[in-house]
């Protein structure tokens, strides 16, 4: 396969940046999208040019590091996959592919396709944990949790924090991410002690970071590689309102 790549190049956070076009020849359809970038980078370096910077880590779709906005969609055209799990067979020979970084004020570009997603880390640090001692591993069935509740908590816990939701949202809102993290702990007994304070703090931090508001378009959930549902956003709204009304935090 021969592919034409139009890639966003930006030398640093302050650089204006712009698109560069690359012709990538003899691409194997079995390559992952990132492997195609690896090959391109080797060629660029051979020519004495700087390779394209992009985030990646596990390349198994579970770490949430890869973050390319491919042809108008985070993680590319396939549903429920991350960029690292996207293969070149999803494209056609001769295709032109436009690759951009995540665009959000809360995700400033570091270089090329790499963006700074520490705003997500700060939301987690604000309350996305269980602080109280929950003891050792309990006996099976000692804490009864209905299967449907456990499943819902697991669905929320699947969020890998890649930021595709923010990238796709027309308002660059982080509601899907934050709500998945709030949900997974609000649904389980271990998360009850800090339940109210957690949602208050995480939402406050989310706003502090400069993410937009939710318009309920559903774009976030549609592009989420882990298919996190909008139900979690409704749950977070519920959690937040009831916490604000009933918590003793003034």
């Amino acid at each position, binding site marked *: 396969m021969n592919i034409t790549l*139009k890639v*966003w190049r930006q030398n640093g956070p302050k650089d204006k940046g712009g*698109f560069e076009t690359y012709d990538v020849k003899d691409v194997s359809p079995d390559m992952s999208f990132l492997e195609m970038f690896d090959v391109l980078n080797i060629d660029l370096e051979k020519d004495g040019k700087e390779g394209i910077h992009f985030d990646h880590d596990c390349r198994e779709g579970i770490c949430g590091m890869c973050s390319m*906005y491919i*042809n*108008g*969609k985070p993680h590319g055209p396939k549903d429920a996959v991350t960029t690292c799990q996207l293969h070149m067979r999803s494209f056609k020979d001769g295709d032109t592919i*436009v690759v*951009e970084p995540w*665009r*959000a*004020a*809360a995700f400033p570009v570091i270089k090329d396709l790499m963006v700074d997603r520490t705003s997500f880390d700060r939301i987690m640090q604000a309350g996305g944990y269980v602080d109280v001692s929950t003891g050792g591993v309990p006996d099976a069935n000692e804490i009864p949790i209905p299967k449907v509740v456990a499943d819902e908590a697991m669905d929320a816990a699947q969020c890998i924090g890649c930021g595709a939701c923010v990238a*796709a949202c*027309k*308002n*660059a*809102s982080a*509601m899907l991410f934050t709500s998945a993290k709030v949900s997974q702990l609000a649904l389980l007994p271990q998360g009850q002690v800090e339940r109210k304070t957690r949602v208050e703090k995480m*939402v*406050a931090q*989310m*706003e502090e970071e*400069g*993410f*937009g*508001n*939710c*318009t*309920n*378009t*559903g*774009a976030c*959930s*549609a*592009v989420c590689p882990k298919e996190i549902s*909008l*139900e979690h*956003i*409704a*749950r*977070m*709204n*519920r*959690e*937040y*309102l009831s916490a*604000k009304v009933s918590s003793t*935090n*003034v």
Partner: protein
Amino acid sequence: MSWITQTLSSSIGKKVLMALTGLFLILFLVVHLAGNLQLLVDDGGQSFNAYAYKMAHNPFIKVVSYGNFFFILLHAVIGIVLTIKNKAARKVGYHVSTKDSESTWASKNMPLLGVIILVFIVVHLMGFWAKAKLGIGEIGFVIIDGVEMHDLYTVVKTAYENILISGFYVISMIALGFHLSHGFQSAFQSLGLNHKKYTPLFKTVGTLYSYIVCFGFAIIPILMYLGISF
């Protein structure tokens, strides 16, 4: 009290205010439409004028109408604040715009639709409400059952006989229909009222409601322009 202002000014709080004011306006539109359909009664405007007189002289309706103005303003102001914040959350846009299968056109264009509706409300109030309430422009009188009252029917009829005005009304109602098609169900999501049983119901009712309101309001200027009444 600071926790109250803090809650209401948070992103979720603002969305909750949008939802609550929106739901109030959704109820208002039902009452408004029911009243307006009397314009189509073939009695020279008697029933419509009598209805308008009754509404104008009911203290309860008066209080609700002030609430209505306040909620329209609040809905518009918070909408503008949210839109400004949302634009600021992405300063550099994408070269290729987002494509996804889920989002409806209306959901992505709520601010634009809102502006069209706001312009419509201003024109609408200047055309009808200001004439009856503020005495701006000309309005005649009729006597029904021995009571002298404004002849609002003739004001409406004259306005709708102008193709530009009736056309503007129809286009605005289509924008309203789109706005409601997303707004109705979105309000429940913002309030956190999401349930496997009821969410599909809210969506269906919301879609039906937006069709009925859009069609109901749009058909009045069309039929009056054509001179059809029942």
